[in-house]
């Protein structure tokens, strides 16, 4: 069951880079601190990490430019490659 807490958790993952890094490093701790219910905890743990980073980068580029610029697109590609190698 989705909830406002889960939407807020996702929004914060997209815009707060420190929060996102903490989540990638220790997802269970961050999820616990955010107070998600049991179903939402499982959903959050299942987030695909490279896709999360790709989405966050895409949103950041759009916040800066209104749309994805060619430069931001290339940066997203490089970031995606790095993430998959981790």
């Amino acid at each position: 069951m989705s909830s406002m807490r889960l939407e807020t958790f996702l929004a914060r993952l997209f815009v707060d880079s420190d929060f996102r890094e903490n989540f990638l490093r220790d997802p269970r701790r961050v999820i616990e601190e955010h107070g998600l219910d049991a179903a939402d905890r499982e959903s959050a743990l299942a987030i695909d990490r490279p896709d999360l980073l790709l989405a966050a980068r895409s949103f950041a580029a759009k916040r800066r430019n209104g749309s994805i610029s060619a430069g931001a697109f290339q940066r997203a590609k490089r970031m995606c490659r790095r993430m998959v190698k981790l």
Partner: protein
Amino acid sequence: MVVGADAGDRFGIGWRDRLAAGIFTHLDEIDAVEVIAESCMDAPARRLRSLRALGREVPLLVHGVGLGAASVSPVDRGHLNRMARVVEALEPCAWSEHLSFVRSGGYEIGHLAAPPRSAATIEGAARNLRKLRDVVGTSPAVENIATLMAPPGSSMDEPCWVKAITAAAGTPLLLDLHNLYANAVNFGHEPFEYLRRFPLDAVEVVHISGGAWMECGGSAPDQSYRRLLDDHLHDVPDPVFLMLEVLGEFCPQSLTVILERDGLFPSMGVLLQQLRRARAAVAEGRRRGLAVRRATHELDAA
């Protein structure tokens, strides 16, 4: 019965300031213009008057990107009031908003994010869309969005979720074919089968655009994958035109098809060529659909 792409169908382009001269010069080939609502919200009265004047030449549509209607949270009332003022000022023939969330708990995502596809967001979206209708005066068409991340907390897939929201809210669908195509190929669906599962009877407006593939190659072969990014910076790809044919075949209602381009602008000639191709694709689908219906009618009569 609609039998051709010229029988009520319209083919237009998204208004961008960079395209203004080209749009005004080629209104003989452009049946409709779609304006981004947020670009008008703080605009001087002169700009609104100009757009309204354009609306006397060609049907206008207003397209919102900032309400975030598909959410368990209520839409921002201030933003909704500004949307209502834009619609009142421009008097468009239709307006639309995305099935996305854009903010929550004080965090502004700044763009369109896919919410969990669940009963809760269906209920939230229906509640928000009723509010939009009450404040603006007409229901918006709702648009499917592209997402690079499968929305967590989902209990259903995208076609079912979209269908449930349009049914619950009684809103028409703005079907973005490149968003649909990107989600299909990024998450392992056959695109044409995926398309047929959307509520095609609710489609009134169609977006076409382009994107680019990102090769996300890892160090091992099994780590590599690709993602199609819906960036509106590239030409409309062939599969999107084929999907338009499918819509022409299976949607008897009139369609308004809008070409979206946000940057890396080619010449106006290239954009108009894509509009002509869209027109031809819908016409081809209409012809095919009519032939099937005639054959079925003859079989029934025999």
